[in-house]
């Protein structure tokens, strides 16, 4: 049999259900590989011994009716986990142990998942390279000099490096899709309201959405089906008919209309990205779907709009980290002094930068010019998609304007870092579902992803298209386990 850790989630589930593998064997295998993979710095908190005892317990009294029986899973450290430290990649929460569980992770445990540990991420999910984490940067299993993308960089490294059979990330402006693209894996950002935000450390509430990151579309569908539930504890959770995504998954997409937005042909886009896109279009045709040119005219305003709305919400969401109730506190002469020292020492530069931007755009005198205008533009961007979806069933674009960049390459230039999100942020602003699937390699051999954007709450159709393309593309990741000595 193939080594355990190289098996897909779907295969592992089958093998556990057929009693070819025990939960303990599987859990042990991923723990061993994770322990050999410390150089990637994918984990912030390991929970291996608990995972093992849970696996043993599962084996003693296995319930094979569950969807992921006894499957070990490491999750992004933005999800609050009961009794397990949850840091959001920040010093200010470096000692924080929740007494509660996020709805998304609870859904995973309810279906038989076992927590392996908490994965590294950009601080408060603010970053596109996992370099803003207080716990250090994560290395891309593709190459030791490359960033894994961000903010779900630890998750992307862990799934591509096979430290976990499946994982979850969060995506506010591309934080699942961009790292998936950089690591040659599959990442789904569901429709806003599909997965509960309860218990996820908030970055920008109107944009944040949790989603699965996997080796395959099939695995992605299975986990999405598990984590997406209506949750009355989140007022923005949507109560819609949820498909059995993995069961209903089909490659039959004949006759589907796929849009190609001309505005995504941005200046200075590398030729290989353009080529990849073209290749994707051919595959779509091969599957019997129809290609239609569309226009999303407000696309160029998406990035500035995003960088007003997201920081505005973040500046308010992060006000609670004040040293008073939990987390890191620095000593101060008085209340204001304590606030200033706690927040100066507790937050990293990127977080502070966004808090300042957010505070500025909400200030009286600037609110109308920035925040209010950004909200109006956001509506226009959403209208663009609504118009397009009168003609097409889905839209296909590149996931990112480049392949993974080098560690340290963009840290001193925040704007070039922000430009990484250019293809992904419009989707968050419109609240739509989108998936990044690996579609090829650039000349350096680094993976490149294609993004498929679906209609709101039509995750099934989106996954079907991805499933069909995945087969045509038959992508193979070139990972040589360089970090394992």
């Amino acid at each position, binding site marked *: 049999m193939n080594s355990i850790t190289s098996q897909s989630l779907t295969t592992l589930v089958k093998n556990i259900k057929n009693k070819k593998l025990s939960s303990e064997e599987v859990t042990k295998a991923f723990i061993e590989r994770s322990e050999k993979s410390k150089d990637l710095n994918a984990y912030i908190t390991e929970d291996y011994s608990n995972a093992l005892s849970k696996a043993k317990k599962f084996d003693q009294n296995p319930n094979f009716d569950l969807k992921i029986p006894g499957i070990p899973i490491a999750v992004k450290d933005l999800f609050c986990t009961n009794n397990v430290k949850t840091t959001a990649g920040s010093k200010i929460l470096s000692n924080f142990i929740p007494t509660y569980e996020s709805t998304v992770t609870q859904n995973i445990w309810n279906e038989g998942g076992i927590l392996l540990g908490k994965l590294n991420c950009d601080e408060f999910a603010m970053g596109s390279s996992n370099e803003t984490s207080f716990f250090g940067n994560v290395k891309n299993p593709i190459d030791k000099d490359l960033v894994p993308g961000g903010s779900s960089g630890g998750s992307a490294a862990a799934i591509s490096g096979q430290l976990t059979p499946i994982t979850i990330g969060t995506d506010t402006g591309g934080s699942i899709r961009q790292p998936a693209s950089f690591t040659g894996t599959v990442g789904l950002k569901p429709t806003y309201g599909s997965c509960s935000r309860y218990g996820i450390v*908030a970055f920008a509430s109107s944009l944040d959405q949790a989603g699965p990151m996997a080796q395959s579309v099939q695995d992605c569908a299975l986990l999405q089906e598990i984590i997406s539930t209506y949750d009355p504890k989140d007022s*923005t959770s949507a109560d819609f008919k949820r498909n059995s995504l993995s069961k209903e998954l089909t490659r039959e997409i004949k006759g589907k209309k796929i849009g190609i937005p001309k505005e995504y042909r941005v200046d200075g886009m590398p030729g290989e990205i353009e080529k990849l896109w073209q290749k994707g279009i051919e595959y779509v045709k091969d599957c019997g779907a129809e290609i239609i040119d569309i226009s999303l005219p407000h696309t160029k305003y998406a990035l500035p709009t995003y960088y007003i709305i997201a920081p505005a919400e973040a500046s308010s969401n992060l006000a609670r980290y004040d040293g008073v109730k939990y987390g890191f506190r620095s000593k101060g002469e008085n209340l204001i002094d304590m606030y200033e020292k706690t927040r100066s020492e507790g937050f990293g530069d990127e977080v502070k930068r966004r808090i300042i931007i957010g505070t500025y755009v909400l200030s009286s005198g600037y609110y109308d010019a920035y925040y209010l205008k950004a909200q109006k533009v956001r509506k226009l961007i959403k209208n663009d998609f609504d118009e397009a979806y009168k003609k097409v069933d889905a839209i296909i674009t590149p996931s990112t304007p480049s392949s993974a960049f080098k560690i340290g390459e963009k840290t001193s230039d925040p704007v070039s870092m922000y430009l990484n999100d250019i293809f992904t942020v419009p989707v968050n602003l419109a609240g739509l579902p989108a998936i990044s699937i690996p579609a090829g390699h650039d000349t350096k051999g680094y993976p490149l992803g294609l993004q498929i954007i679906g209609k709101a709450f039509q995750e099934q159709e989106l996954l079907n298209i991805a499933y069909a393309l995945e087969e045509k593309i038959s992508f193979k990741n070139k990972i040589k386990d360089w970090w394992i000595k």
Partner: protein
Amino acid sequence: MSKENTEYLISRNKKIYEVIIGLEVHAQVISNSKLFSSSSTKFGAEPNTQVSLVDAAFPGMLPVINEFCIKQAIKTGLGLRAKINKRSVFDRKNYFYADLPQGYQISQFNYPIVGEGSVIIDMPNGQKTVGIERLHLEQDAGKSIHDMDPQNTLIDLNRSGVALMEIVSKPDLRSPEEVSAYIKKLRSIMRYLGTCDGNMQEGSLRADVNVSVRLKGTEKLGTRCEIKNVNSIKFMQMAINYEANRQVDLIEDGKTINQETRLFDTKKNETRSMRNKEDAHDYRYFPDPDLLPLEVSDEFINKLIAEIPELPDDKKKRFIDKFKLSSYEATILVSDLETSKYFEEVVENSDVKLATNWITGDLFAVLNDKNLEISQSPVSAKNLSKLINLIKNGTISGKIAKTIFELMMDGDKDPSKIVEEKELKQESDPKELEAIINKVIQDNPDKVRDFKSGKTKLFGFFVGLVMKVSGGKANPQLVNDILKQKL
């Protein structure tokens, strides 16, 4: 300084200034749980025992609107004859303070749940309508305790997240008396509705008072100062008095009034500057992305309309029509829901006139004296109506009734039992009375002579004497009749 009608006018150097007052009342919503969490709202619990993860703003915690609080706010809006906004939005008001765990207060800024309405107040010279600008829902903050620990400020989050209604009046009030009448009326309406208990001692009702002055007869409003968080009607009146005169003095000295927030120092009876417009907080209001806009249907509102009880204004009208009460009497009897209920229970079986007098007279005096609410009255409505009937059917005199009333207060005793036990039944047997009267006439030949020679005022003397001899039990009407015959 002079007071004409209910306006408060300040005279200086032959100029007359009028005082313009608007109130922002913060009324705690009656609700078992908080505005966005399921924690209890009970007053007086041990510190930090009524705090959920949401109230303490733990990471990833989200607010979920309490539908009951929405109903309470809409009901209050209906009681204020106000426009109910079918769509309203919750905003974040951002500021840092140790007892504000989220770093922002969830409130309503541009789109409040209730729009314009009005409140009618009764003043000695007639009724006055006070405009309501808006009513919005917001969260209360926690409490900072500065005097329990020498080194540290302690925080109690029990109140954090409790639902408040901020009721903003138009600048329609013109005197401390009108402010008092307005607050009392507002409180009365909310108590009738069961939406706020109006308990100012417990902080369930407090107000920010906006005061400005202008020359009488001019249109333009003067610069206003906001006096924060005043928690009794008396203090509001004192603060307005001080503040209005301070502003007039400034104008008369040729100085300008700064728009600012002030605090009322209850010990020194003065207002003090807290912060001026320049260092006013920039609250960076924006719609709370954790909450969708609140939309209520006509059906939802109509259900609430059906639940609205008879309110003070309607009840007053009914009392006047049905019981022929004066406007003054009716106002007093309806101002408090429990009083009106008590009154209706008493008059169900007894005389209205006597009931009105007994309740507003003797009973109120006792309650006032003992600092009791009418619901804690030592004499029940049932027994008071029995007492009134004993007077009405001539069993006892009004004077004896007062004695009996005193005795009733010891454990809400049945007045007819007291009459029996103490043998206080009125003497209405003419023969018995004649005997007493004959004796009185015999014992006072001089007075009889004087009376007959024209000193008719002495009639009262004889009545008094007869009453005294009878131990107060003689039926006064019969005594009068017999005396007239005998003399």
